[in-house]
């Protein structure tokens, strides 16, 4: 069996991922990353005016300027910004600059629903421009003045982007996926910007080196502190009792709730349990077939609570949202995901406080670290209160 095969696209040499078809070897590692690619023929508009209903905070303005300066000097940036700090708004300046100067700019996110939400948000900001959203099932048009895409779709762009902005770099499926990293590198022609609320040690070290920069934004755009999670500890029975009590209390004050569960199985079980007491809610997980519909119903307050798995851990902005994490001590929750989940609360200017409750059998290391990090970020805020 010939064993010198190297995949011409992703460079894989591992025989474990090499298959044979009609006697010829083929790469099985990047096999699902095939399809129509962007031609680069697209001619973009030479202007990019933006409209924002509100003004950026001083911190945001400063970061936006810095991002643009770095790009103009050929420096890649890491934006370490807390959830709800307005990471997307910070990019408006640099995106507008790229479009105006005929540079190809893309904005990649890990998930399809976040990609769609961002498309609408940016379309509302850059009203004269042609934006294109590229995600699984919607790949007919690949080019535009600004391309919003899921990280998976990066394989369609060969040394294409003058500027590629990637948000939530620490999220599944980007994290730990070598193939995606290969296609990420392949898609970039010039510079990139990585954004995350929870960078890991390697990333921070990498960007501390010369020729790269780390930009930090620890204040939420409304200037108020991040909600600090409250831990309720006890046995199974006690936690279930407290779950009902807290949900009841929150619903009575007409606020909406996300109840996070560590497994898909629990998302259904906890929903069925809560349904005995509260009728106006539902559950959502990666197996849900009508996710968009469920989220829509939640937004119009038809559902007052949603029992959910990690699918809603990122990207979703809902006003006056309270967050409960059921079994926050479950091994699947590391401090990064707990911080992301806590970031779902208190995201809107009109309702900056939000409650975050951790229901757990024990106050484990990951929970303590998440709470410590949130407290540390809050301390960095100037004392406006």
């Amino acid at each position: 069996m010939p064993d010198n095969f190297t995949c011409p696209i992703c460079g894989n040499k591992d025989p474990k991922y090499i298959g044979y078809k009609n006697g010829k070897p083929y790469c099985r590692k990047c096999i699902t990353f095939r399809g129509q690619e962007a031609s680069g023929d697209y001619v973009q508009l030479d202007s990019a005016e933006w409209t924002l209903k509100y003004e950026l905070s001083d911190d945001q303005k400063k970061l936006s300027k810095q991002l643009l300066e770095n790009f103009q000097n050929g420096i890649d940036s890491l934006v370490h910004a807390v959830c709800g700090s307005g990471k997307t708004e910070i990019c408006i300046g640099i995106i507008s600059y790229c479009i105006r100067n005929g540079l190809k700019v893309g904005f990649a996110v890990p998930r399809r629903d976040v990609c769609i939400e961002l498309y609408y948000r940016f379309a509302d900001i850059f009203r004269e421009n042609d934006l294109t959203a590229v995600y699984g099932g919607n790949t007919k048009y690949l080019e535009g003045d600004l391309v919003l895409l899921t990280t998976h779709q990066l394989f369609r762009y060969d040394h294409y982007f003058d500027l590629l902005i990637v948000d939530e770099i620490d999220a599944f499926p980007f994290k730990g996926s070598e193939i995606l990293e290969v296609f990420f590198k392949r898609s970039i022609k010039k510079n990139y910007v990585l954004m995350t609320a929870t960078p890991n040690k390697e990333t921070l070290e990498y960007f501390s080196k010369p020729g790269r920069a780390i930009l930090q934004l620890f204040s939420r755009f409304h200037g108020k502190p991040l909600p600090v999670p409250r831990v309720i500890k006890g046995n199974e029975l006690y936690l279930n009792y407290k779950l009902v009590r807290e949900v009841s209390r929150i619903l009575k004050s007409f606020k909406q709730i996300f109840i996070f569960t560590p497994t898909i199985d629990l998302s259904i079980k906890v929903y069925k349990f809560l349904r005995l007491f509260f009728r106006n809610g539902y559950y959502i997980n990666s197996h849900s077939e009508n996710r968009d519909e469920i989220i829509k119903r939640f937004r119009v307050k038809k559902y007052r609570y949603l029992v959910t798995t990690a699918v809603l851990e990122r990207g979703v902005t809902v006003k006056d949202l309270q967050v409960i994490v059921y079994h926050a001590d479950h091994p699947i929750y590391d401090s990064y995901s707990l911080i992301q989940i806590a970031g779902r609360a208190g995201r809107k200017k009109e309702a900056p406080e939000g409650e975050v409750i951790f229901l757990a059998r024990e106050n484990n290391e990951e929970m303590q670290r998440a709470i410590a990090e949130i407290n540390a970020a809050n301390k960095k805020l100037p004392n406006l209160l």
Partner: protein
Amino acid sequence: MPICQACQTEMEPKFISFFVDGHKAISIYDYNPFIRKLIYQYKGCYDYELHKVFLDRYAKEIKLRYSDYVVIPIPSYKNEDEERGFNHVVETFKSLGINMLNIIEKTEKHKQAVSTVNQRKEVYKYLELNCYPDLNKKKVLIVDDVYTTGSTMKAAIHLVEKLNPKKIDVLVVAKTKAKQLPK
């Protein structure tokens, strides 16, 4: 061919029993997200190495059950098979080692997967027999990868009935639920 426990669990074999125009049919799996991904990688991304994963675990039992049958696969358009490098239905069911007759041909590139319910009904126009063996007293098993509205299967049954088989059964890898159709 070993498949790990995690994948076996996600595939969720169910052996769903149903009927197509009065003929007994079985679908091994529900068209769940995992199976959908596997079939996409196998059929859409041309990953030949996956040809055994769908049936292998039950190959012995299925072969026993249909050992005295003649297997007739639902065809793809010839150009598609050439581009893919193989026919996905044939390769999957070939491993059963049962006598296979490739006598139905698809004359045009009509894709069921991206068709609406009404468009799917048109499929009978593009299927025809390319051979007329006498199937008198023979039992026939028509096989396919995915069963949705049954338009394709019904058209195939209609063709095969002309050859006078003793009976026709149906076996498919996965069966979709109606609401998963594109609109």
